[in-house]
């Protein structure tokens, strides 16, 4: 109980001044603009068919694509530049609580910020497309037209007949949201680990490398690099579907009965294992971590 109280206090301390921090404000504003660019595809589809969309469909179509997830998560690097949160108050906290509890508070802080950021992305995408959307939890005519035409596949829009039959827009967007959060958490935990191990530049480098790794293992990019045709990509697609964290976060790269790809649950489990591994490494690094600077940002 005492531990939980201490962790909560440390998390609350981390959030002190969070919404007044210029870097945080700018990150959220940039994210708004990014969502505008990314949701352009959904608006184009709605304009093309001259029909309305369900309120969550722009989010599903936008963040069901690997490139959008990658770009959206890159802004998290800017958001988490100051991890772990150090301030002149940190030495007092460390006198009164175990280092492990302090690190646990950092994890909770990252988790809450990531969830907040992704919820904001969901909300903003909805607001940006609200002129052509309706709130009911039923797939739109636009989604049906996309599912039965080649346009959805050409635009990498995850709107297939299988998806529409098996789930509702709310459920589908919830699954995409969970995958996004899991991917963003692994990126943030990795940054925290490298920040503690080798400093800020290494953390940024690790974040960028993690994103680049996912980008290069995108089947479309690999097909261009390896100069393979679509029919030759079956095995590569299957392997990268399991190996790349970005593909685990991409809704369309999951098992819908056509491929031997991971299911949503399996992807979540893989992310969880990855997060536990990164947490373990962070706790191990904490033993040697030099709390030399308490000046914060």
């Amino acid at each position: 109980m005492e531990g939980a109280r201490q962790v909560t206090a440390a998390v609350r301390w981390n959030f002190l001044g969070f919404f007044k921090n210029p870097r945080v404000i700018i990150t959220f504003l940039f994210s708004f603009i990014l969502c505008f660019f990314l949701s352009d595809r959904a608006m184009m589809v709605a304009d093309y068919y001259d029909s309305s969309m369900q309120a969550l469909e722009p989010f599903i179509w936008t963040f069901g694509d690997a490139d959008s997830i990658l770009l959206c998560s890159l802004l998290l690097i800017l958001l988490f530049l100051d991890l772990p949160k150090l301030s002149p108050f940190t030495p007092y906290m460390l006198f009164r609580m175990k280092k492990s509890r302090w690190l646990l508070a950092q994890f909770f802080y990252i988790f809450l910020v990531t969830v907040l950021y992704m919820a904001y992305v969901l909300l903003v995408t909805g607001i940006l497309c609200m002129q052509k959307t309706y709130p009911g939890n039923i797939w739109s005519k636009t989604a049906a037209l996309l599912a039965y035409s080649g346009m959805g596949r050409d635009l990498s829009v995850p709107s297939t007949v299988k998806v529409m039959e098996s789930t509702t827009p709310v459920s589908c967007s919830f699954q995409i949201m969970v995958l996004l959060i899991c991917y963003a958490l692994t990126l943030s935990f990795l940054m925290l680990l490298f920040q503690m191990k080798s400093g800020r530049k290494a953390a940024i480098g690790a974040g960028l490398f993690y994103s680049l790794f996912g980008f290069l293992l995108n089947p479309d990019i690999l097909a261009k690099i390896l100069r393979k045709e679509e029919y030759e990509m079956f095995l590569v697609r299957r392997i990268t579907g399991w190996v790349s964290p970005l593909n685990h976060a991409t809704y369309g790269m999951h098992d819908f009965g056509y491929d031997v790809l991971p299911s949503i649950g399996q992807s979540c489990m893989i992310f969880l294992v990855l997060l536990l591994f990164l947490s373990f490494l962070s706790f191990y690094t904490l033993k040697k971590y030099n709390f030399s600077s308490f000046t914060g940002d």
Partner: protein
Amino acid sequence: MKELLRDRGFQAAVLVSFLAMALGFPFYQAKIPLNPGSFLEFYQTALEAQTMLFLIPVAAVLSPGAAYVRESSSGFLKLYLTRTSRMEYIRTKTWRIYAGGFLPFFLAGTGGFLLCFFFLYPLELKGSISWKEIRSVLEILLRISFTGGILAEFSGIFAVVFRNYYMAYGLPFVIYYMMIILKERYLPKLYAWYPGEWVVCQEDWGTDQMGIWIFFLVISLAVMLIHSLILYRRLREI
């Protein structure tokens, strides 16, 4: 002026502006011999390209925007104010920031125009080019430069208000895109506040499209006045 031209941010802004033009240049359309006036058409396409529209707020704030943050945080400002008057500092700073946003586009655009003339005009078939066409493309360049100047002043204002690099460099970009979002997603008839329209000037801006020049003049004076007043208030604190 010398100080501005030596500034690395300014040089980077000129380079970014030139790259924006080069990326939007329709090289794939160039088939020799070129039709008369092709170099002007190509140049206009480069100026009106999406890359240019995207990079305007980036290049505009690179040079002088956050100068106040740098000068005040390093303590240089206190020292500098002992050697000059406050009014002189405000006057110089306001004009310099405006020039720092205006000139990169103007210099890069002029350079691009001359390059197009020297390399493409000799490849054209013989024909006449009207002054009206030349004036038209130079007006586009001037409008882009004015947009850059206004955005640079915004950067200056945010630097003085927030005293923070993120705000000084990021907020003009955000405001620029908020205007685009407003027009493209919510108010399609609001063309006067659409940066894309400022460049192409195709809607109704009054007789001889004079309205847009008055618009630029008024907005430029307004942002310079606001910047000066905020700077004056900040300097009183020192």
